[in-house]
């Protein structure tokens, strides 16, 4: 996935504490639930039973900060207002490819209200040349329109914006290319003068750095399992398809931005980020500051979807301007900058061939993909082909194609919506060729035990039962269809995270972690864990997160937050509770082991005293505060390679005269270990489905081929699903215990529908019309063309 310094891979391995054997629930209640033994550190709290036997965890709880968000009390980065704060504005390149000869800021500096001007020295985000000496020149080479060149800090936003127009930039234009096919041609203008690589972020993204680069083609990155030539020879049937997906931008409602306050001895930064730790590290590294002198705060966050790791250009520039001016500086991107310069989901052009035996057994999967991550890398999309099914052989070649456009960044399940769009439609094609039901074929080739249960749930659903086995069966121009597709995501564990729990003598409880709540609801879950451990309602718990002053939290990328952090929180809570009971036991005249915490009370197991309220018991503490800190222990059985996923079913109506695809209903059956808060988990899946529908049917970053500029850098002509495009979504959460940690939580953000819904829609369109649409977004133009050509090739 990634190689940032905050990640486990680069850290020395912690010693494993002494183990004890525990019995844990594993499997799906009602289907496959059983007990397995695990070796857990002896310091771990007792094993939790399945959700129905817990009081708070595993039950829906409303969002901890819902009222703050709904009422406007929540303070997002752009709400931070500091005395003397300046407003910064970027000056961006207006050309897609150019050498910057000079940057004249003198007029801007003299503009009334301007306090500081900064010329960007190094652009963060694009791939870096293996040989940096190839980029000679005083200023960074412009490789995409919208690349930041300088920034102005002024006393008002208007002054900053006006002064920004006064910066004179002299360019030497370079030939450019913004079209993937053209960029692949041997005589295409090179985006880089030599091989270049992009490092991954905590959310994935980035690409391999050990591959060839020929012209703009960075790759292939080849992965082989046994021999596909042999595999195709052994195949009874072969299906093949050519699939194309577009570039999507993250389009979080809150744009990237920071408020940086550089004071002697402490740089404080409010950031809209998915990783407070990642921002701190990048700033400390960039400005050569000790980590102890950088503090990053993210009280509330308005969406990131993978694009918000590290300080990035806004963080570095705001900090530099704050240092220069001696005043706090706010730098929020506008919508256009958000589209152009801070990430996107790469496109894909995939040729996929699958061979199978008559009984469905896959003998070979062969995928060649090209995709563009702009002037970055990370367009690989072989994940689903590699990891969803059993096969005798596999050959994948992933190529990044550089174009003069903003660099991609991780975006919700990097590579997977693209890869699944091709794979899951090809599997359906195979089912047609083998004359079997698509769901039965998947039973044959997919041995994931949880997806097997999920398919069973789908099979029994009214929606799936309503699917016509004959494609294009409806009379009349509007045709209904139902299709399914599967998703896969992986268990990444960050052990580099910790939490602190405090019990105060007034009976109040708090939990502290630097983790940021990016909207997925970790705050609420932390409150639930303390509630479960102390037997008090979640509303009595204070949750303090989003501040690097607290114990380090995981960066929220790769669906790691809940599964990484919650065991540390539970361990800290359990240890604090043990300390608390030991501390008050003498005053109650019992031994600590006789005390239980339940229903807001402290009780004596042997009935030695009448139950007393938690509050009154806390008053007996011998210190004003009891604390415990715990770090995430490794998974109990790290030898297990674990994936999660789901099965999504889409019902569509295709208006064949208009080429319009309307998604009417979605059934989403998903697993994520122990769902900690079903309501919030379902909300993640709703979001994934909506984002996936928007990707499949509407969104498209459009670059003018002759000028290399984006023509729709807004949320109007960049078409994004609105209320009317959202179908009825029924989510069925499948509890799937895996016996891996003290909470046994897993992740959901990425597997949540966004991977599979595009292919499910594609399969539903096929079921409706008998025609396959192999291209996104499925606009009327695309669908009409496919219908006209009978689906041979969109």
């Amino acid at each position: 996935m990634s190689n940032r310094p905050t990640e486990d891979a680069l850290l020395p391995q912690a010693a494993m504490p002494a183990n004890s054997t525990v019995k844990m629930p594993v499997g799906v209640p009602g289907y496959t639930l059983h007990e397995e033994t695990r070796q857990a550190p002896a310091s771990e709290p007792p094993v939790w039973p399945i959700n129905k036997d817990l009081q708070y965890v595993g039950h829906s709880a409303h969002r901890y900060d819902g009222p703050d968000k709904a009422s406007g009390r929540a303070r997002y980065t752009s709400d931070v207002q500091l005395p003397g704060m300046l407003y910064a504005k970027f000056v961006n390149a207006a050309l897609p490819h150019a050498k910057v000869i000079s940057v004249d800021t003198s007029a801007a500096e003299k503009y009334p209200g301007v306090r500081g001007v900064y010329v960007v020295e190094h652009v963060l985000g694009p791939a870096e040349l293996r040989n940096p000496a190839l980029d000679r020149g005083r200023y960074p080479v412009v490789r995409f329109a919208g690349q930041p060149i300088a920034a102005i800090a002024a006393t008002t936003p208007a002054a900053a914006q006006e002064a920004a127009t006064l910066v004179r930039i002299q360019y030497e234009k370079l030939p450019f290319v913004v079209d993937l096919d053209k960029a692949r041609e041997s005589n295409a203008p090179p985006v880089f003068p030599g091989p270049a690589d992009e490092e991954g972020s905590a959310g994935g993204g980035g690409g391999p750095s050990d591959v060839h680069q020929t012209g703009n083609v960075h790759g292939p990155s080849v992965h082989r399992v046994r021999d596909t030539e042999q595999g195709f020879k052994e195949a009874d049937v072969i299906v093949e398809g050519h699939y194309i997906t577009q570039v999507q931008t993250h389009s979080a409602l809150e744009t990237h931005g920071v408020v940086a306050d550089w004071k002697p001895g402490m740089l404080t930064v409010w950031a809209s980020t998915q990783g407070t730790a990642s921002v701190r590290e990048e700033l400390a590294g960039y400005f050569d500051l000790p980590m102890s002198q950088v503090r990053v705060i993210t009280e509330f966050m308005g969406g990131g979807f993978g694009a918000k790791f590290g300080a990035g250009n806004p963080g570095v520039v705001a900090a530099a301007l704050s240092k220069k001016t001696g005043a706090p500086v706010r730098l929020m991107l506008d919508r256009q900058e958000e589209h152009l310069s801070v990430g996107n989901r790469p496109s894909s052009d995939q040729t996929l061939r699958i061979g199978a035996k008559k009984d469905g057994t896959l003998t070979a999967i062969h995928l060649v993909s090209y995709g563009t991550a702009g002037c970055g890398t990370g367009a690989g999309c072989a994940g689903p082909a590699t990891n969803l099914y059993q096969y005798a052989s596999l050959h994948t070649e992933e190529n990044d194609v550089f174009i003069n456009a903003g660099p991609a960044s991780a975006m919700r399940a990097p590579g997977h919506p693209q890869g699944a769009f091709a794979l899951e439609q090809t599997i359906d094609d195979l089912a047609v060729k083998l004359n079997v039901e698509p769901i039965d074929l998947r039973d044959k080739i997919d041995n994931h035990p949880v997806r097997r249960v999920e398919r069973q749930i789908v099979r029994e659903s009214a929606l799936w039962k309503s699917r016509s086995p004959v494609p294009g069966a409806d009379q009349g121009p509007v045709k209904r269809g139902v299709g399914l597709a599967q998703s896969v995501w992986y268990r990444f564990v960050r052990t580099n995270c910790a939490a602190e729990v405090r019990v105060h003598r007034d009976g109040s409880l708090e939990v502290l972690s630097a983790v940021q709540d990016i909207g997925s609801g970790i705050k609420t879950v932390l409150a639930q864990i303390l509630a479960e451990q102390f037997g008090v309602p979640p509303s009595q718990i204070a949750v303090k997160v989003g501040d690097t002053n607290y114990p380090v939290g995981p960066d929220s990328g790769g669906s790691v937050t809940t599964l990484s952090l919650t065991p540390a929180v539970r361990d800290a809570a359990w240890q604090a509770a043990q300390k608390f009971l030991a501390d008050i036991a003498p005053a109650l005249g019992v031994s600590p082991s006789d005390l239980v915490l339940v229903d807001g009370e402290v009780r004596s197991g042997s009935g030695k005293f009448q139950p007393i309220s938690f509050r009154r018991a806390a008053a007996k503490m011998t210190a004003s505060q009891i604390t415990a800190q715990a770090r995430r222990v490794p998974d109990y059985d790290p030898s297990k390679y674990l994936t999660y996923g789901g099965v999504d079913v889409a019902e569509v109506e295709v208006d064949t005269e208009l080429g319009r695809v309307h998604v009417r209903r979605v059934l989403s059956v998903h697993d994520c270990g122990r769902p900690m808060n079903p309501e919030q988990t379902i909300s993640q899946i709703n979001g994934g489905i909506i984002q996936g529908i928007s990707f499949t049917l509407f969104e498209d970053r459009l670059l003018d081929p002759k000028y290399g500029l984006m023509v729709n850098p807004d949320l109007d002509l960049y078409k994004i699903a609105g209320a009317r495009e959202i179908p009825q979504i029924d989510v069925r959460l499948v509890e799937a215990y895996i016996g891996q940690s003290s909470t046994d939580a897993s992740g959901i953000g990425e597997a949540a529908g966004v991977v599979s819904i595009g292919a499910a829609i594609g399969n539903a369109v096929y079921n409706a019309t008998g025609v396959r649409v192999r291209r996104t977004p499925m606009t009327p133009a695309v669908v009409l063309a496919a219908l006209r050509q009978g689906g041979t090739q969109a």
Partner: protein
Amino acid sequence: MNRFALADCTTIDAALSQLKDGAVVKAGGVDLLDRMKDGIEEPQRLVNIRNVAELRGIRETLQGLTVGPLTTLAEISEHPGIRAHYQILSDACGHAATPHIRNMATVGGNLLQRVQCWYYRSANFQCLRKGKDFCFAFEGLNQYHAIMEYTGCPSVAPSSAAVALLGLGASVELTSAKRGKRTVGIRELYVVPDANPTKFTVIEPDELLTAIVIPRPAPGTRSAYQKYGEKESFDWAIADAGVVLEMDGPICRRAVITMGAASPVVRRSPQAEAALAGKPVTEETARAAGRVSVEGAQPLSMNAYKLDLFPVAVYRTVLLAAGLRGRDPSAAG
């Protein structure tokens, strides 16, 4: 956005007297402020007419309707009289943009909004309609552009209200302090880009649009408008159709068929109208009218799909107007 002076007026006379020295009228501001924020226009003075009460409201007369230009799209779409007798207009105003925008957007501003061509809307592109001599759409991205009746500038008419008002044979009253009032028909309100690419409408800088006058439809008239986008929530038309049918029992005495997103200026389709006149309205005749509605079209490199869309928009809207079909779920937005 540039800095500007703002003159807030509450009467027509005050507003007219402010319309000098490059001042620009601001009604709801939905379109004007977008252009200013996108840096494609930098007026130094705005005359805010939003609070001119005499320009707001709907009057039903024996001759028809007089609609003040400041009446919002929402007010028009909800007006019972308009719903009953001018269905095409309530359809058009009720399905433009979004509920929030319809509360802010005035019908006068809607008629006078500028084209949505993304080259026109970007400060990075200086095209014909900004006084330069080049159109970027022909060799660029033109999937939403015109398929007919263009030569130099294939942008499309953006106003839904105009498609309805052209169908109803409406005209607008223009008033200037110096020259008094004049009346022009909806079609004549618009300047075809070939005649003068930077002019858009015949309104002079010192003129206000002060009324929209709609003749009362003949008895037996039925009408409808439908707008098709790529999506339903706040999308622009990729095809739309306005239909006014004067019925004589089952026979259509006279039909007016109008289209917006096909050409730079809102148009009538004489071929489609002829295909219905004197005939019973059936699925067959409606489809025949749809087919000929794009006769003579010359699509650009990326918008041939509109040749499929307009015939469908026309036939389904004819059937909707005739009461033979419900509102199309594909045009519900």
